[in-house]
């Protein structure tokens, strides 16, 4: 059905959220006609699709501003060329040194260091008691973890309410044990949302080790350094040792 120009203008104002008081009476009258209702419905769907296209364009524009900002941070140009050469030379030198050290000591690669420094976190929540096998689902999940049955432990944790930081933390530990590093990272990240939970420092350590296992040495170092400079941190000594070893990689 074809709307009149006046009706189309009112419909546009409706879609743009710009209807004035004077439009409302006419709008009400328009809405009485089923054919007009159809047209409004079509236009509303159309506007939804246009909105999604618009959002995508706006998102691309925001992304372009981020890139622009990144490029601006790299300036000035001439100095940058010089700087590139210096960095390239330093990188080549670094690779030569790393290669030489690796030839000397093949055991000190990131994966070996992970194996050396990683230790499962003890089950301090519901430890297995000698001669007892727990039947309550909460204790059972932790005891499966302690017994090294990590997949079964995850399945058991999944059934528990996720309002307890211990459950989330130990699920993350199971994922580390199973080599599900990406999932573990995100599970640990959710712990960040819980104020004052008791596993903050342990999570910092395990996240650093996950970076090490994935070979992201720079990220690992960024996470280890704050631990290695905080004497009160429970992983302080380990972090200092690991940091030294990383310096020799």
């Amino acid at each position, binding site marked *: 059905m074809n709307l009149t120009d006046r009706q189309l203008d009112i419909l546009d104002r409706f879609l743009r959220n710009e209807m004035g008081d004077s439009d409302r009476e006419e709008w009400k009258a328009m809405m009485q006609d089923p054919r007009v209702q159809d047209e409004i419905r079509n236009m509303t769907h159309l506007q939804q699709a246009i909105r999604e296209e618009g959002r995508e364009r706006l*998102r691309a524009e925001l992304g372009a501003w981020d890139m622009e900002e990144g490029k601006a941070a790299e300036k000035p140009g001439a100095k940058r060329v010089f700087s590139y050469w210096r960095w390239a030379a330093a990188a080549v030198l670094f690779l030569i040194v790393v290669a030489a050290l690796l030839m000397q000591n093949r055991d000190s690669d990131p994966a070996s260091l992970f194996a050396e420094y990683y230790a499962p976190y003890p089950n301090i929540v519901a430890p297995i008691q000698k001669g007892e096998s727990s039947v309550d689902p909460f204790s059972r999940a932790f005891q499966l973890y302690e017994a090294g049955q990590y997949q079964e432990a995850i399945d058991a944790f999944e059934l528990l309410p*996720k309002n307890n930081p211990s459950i989330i933390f130990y699920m993350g530990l199971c994922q580390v044990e199973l080599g599900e590093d990406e999932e573990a990272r995100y599970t640990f990240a959710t712990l960040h*949302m819980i104020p004052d939970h008791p596993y903050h420092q342990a999570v910092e350590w395990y996240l650093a080790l996950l970076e090490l296992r994935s070979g992201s040495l720079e990220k690992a170092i960024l996470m280890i350094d704050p631990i290695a400079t905080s004497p009160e941190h429970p992983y302080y000594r380990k972090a200092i040792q690991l940091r030294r070893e990383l310096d020799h990689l």
Partner: protein
Amino acid sequence: MGNNNQQALESLYQSLRAGNMGLYKGYYQEYKNDFIQFARKFTPDTDLIVDAYHDAFIVLYENVLSRQLEEMTSSLKTYVFSIGKYTLLNKLKKRHRTVYTEGVEGMEMPQYGIVEDLERSESADLLRRHIRSLGDACQSLLILFYYKKYSIEAMMHTLGYKNENTVKAYKSRCLKKLKELMQGAQTS
């Protein structure tokens, strides 16, 4: 304070309606690093944080243009941060199998404006394909009018038309073409 906020919002509204993104871009760049720092306490994933920041600015854009923030008393920055935090926590919640939300501040919907789910809807996908097949000129025109809510005058300047009537005529033509495509798809 509230008055200053409203003035800031009004200036932003006027500039966006006129097709000037400068002020909006200024706020985007000004708050970005602070938001990333702020959001790191929820997740170390910078990509996800930037994604949430984009969402916050899309929501801000839409709510400013639809005049949804007229009652807002907090500052623009506080508003952007609350939307960003809300979308970030929801993204984390969707992504993880386990998420702890009880007692976490910020899981509640921000007080002002409308925060729609910015995920793409499948039902709009076919329509979007039709919009894309219209060609760039029609796409831009429809987006500027129905999404960015440019005035006809601003559209005329942005798209380089000689007068406002030409913009209106071209808009009608684009809509007609789009409806034909929709009808064609329905009958085939």
